């Protein structure tokens, strides 16, 4: 029997760098809020949780109108904590595996399916594209992520990971699930590697690039 999977969409942050005046999950992408794009990709997933903080009532309203059976988990301290805090709150009491997906990461659905189908701890990596990348160091012999750093070279940590829920619980108990997810994962490495096609939306430039990419995908003109 496959391991049950819970997907956590981290929507708690304010997204101030994008400058839309609202959290990134509500950013309009080709006529739909970003969080709806995420929920559409997660249509076959039974247990979906959305971590909310900034603009929580608005995010909830949009998400529940698209999908009624989402469990919303509040990170009220979103201004002082990172995505690891949201993930660990949402993953509490969950059995099996958890996939952590940041609201601002648009993933190619075919690559996301691979993460759903695996039974391993697995990290999504991509070619470096953002201005301040966190690099995943990959051991060539095993093709596993062995560490993270900010100097490179290497593949970029995408923010997407599949991890056993009990490992997240243990990190929370040790006080190591407060800041970034990659920092929480560091003591748990090595993890398998999955190359993914994705676009992260941090800045206005990213926003327009992501829209362009989605239009290309929608028109079947390429894969990113």
């Amino acid at each position, binding site marked *: 029997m496959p391991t049950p999977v819970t997907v956590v969409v981290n929507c708690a942050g304010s997204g101030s760098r994008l400058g839309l005046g609202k959290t990134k999950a509500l950013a309009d992408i080709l006529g739909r809020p970003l969080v709806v794009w995420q929920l559409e990709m997660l249509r076959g997933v039974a247990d979906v949780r959305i971590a909310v903080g900034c603009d929580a009532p608005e995010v909830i309203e949009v998400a529940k109108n698209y999908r009624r059976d989402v*469990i919303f988990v*509040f990170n009220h301290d979103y201004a002082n904590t990172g995505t690891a805090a949201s993930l660990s709150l949402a993953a509490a009491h969950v059995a099996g595996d958890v996939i952590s997906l940041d609201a601002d990461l648009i993933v190619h659905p075919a690559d996301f399916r691979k993460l759903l189908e695996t039974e391993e701890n697995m990290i999504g990596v991509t070619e470096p594209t953002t201005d301040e990348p966190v690099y995943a160091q990959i051991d060539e012999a095993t093709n596993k992520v062995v560490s993270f750093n900010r100097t490179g070279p290497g593949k970029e940590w995408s923010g997407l990971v599949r991890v056993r829920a009990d490992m997240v619980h243990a990190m929370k108990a040790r006080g190591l699930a407060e800041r970034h997810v990659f920092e929480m994962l560091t003591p748990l490495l090595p993890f398998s590697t999955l190359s993914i096609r994705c676009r992260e939306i941090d800045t206005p430039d990213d926003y327009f690039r992501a829209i362009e990419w989605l239009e290309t995908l929608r028109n079947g003109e390429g894969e990113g």
Partner: protein
Amino acid sequence: MPSLQFLFDLDGTLTREELLPKIAREVGLEREIGELTRLTMAGTIPFVASFIERVRILKQVPISRVQEITDTVEIDPHIAEFIRNRRESCAVVTGNLDVWTERLRNRLGIRFFCSKAEAVGEKIIRIASLLDKSHVPLQLGTRCVAIGDGYNDVAMFRQATYGVAFGGVHPPAIGLLDASTHAVYDSRTLCRLLSQLS
């Protein structure tokens, strides 16, 4: 007593309709109660003052008639099943009166924490005590999951280990979301979450 207690609000959480407006509708006092309900929801009248006033209006209805009406109130079937499977761990926490909710208590077969009325025969004389919902988690002295939808659940949520805002009947009060650890919008999802917490 089990180590984790589930504390359910009654109106609009366990029941699929609000009790007092339903009673009012059945006895032709809909207009008076409806206006009070509207002002309470809008935050113009505090919940306690509104409740006292609504009791003043509805106490003219014989208690047995109110109980007949509450017999027809629909209880959410998924939550009812969740409760049936763990009665010792579940309780209802409602500001409503004991004499009005007695039959619902018998239907569910679980403990009720509620306000109390002084009654003589079929008639309510006065409200003997108003329930402060925040006292229940403190009184139980154990880990609690509070489930509710209104402003009057905020204090209970603050004292509970988990506060689950439930929007299955109508959207939970925005102020309640600030005190919540979770929010869910259908009763199957609520029960899935509660089962995981237990």
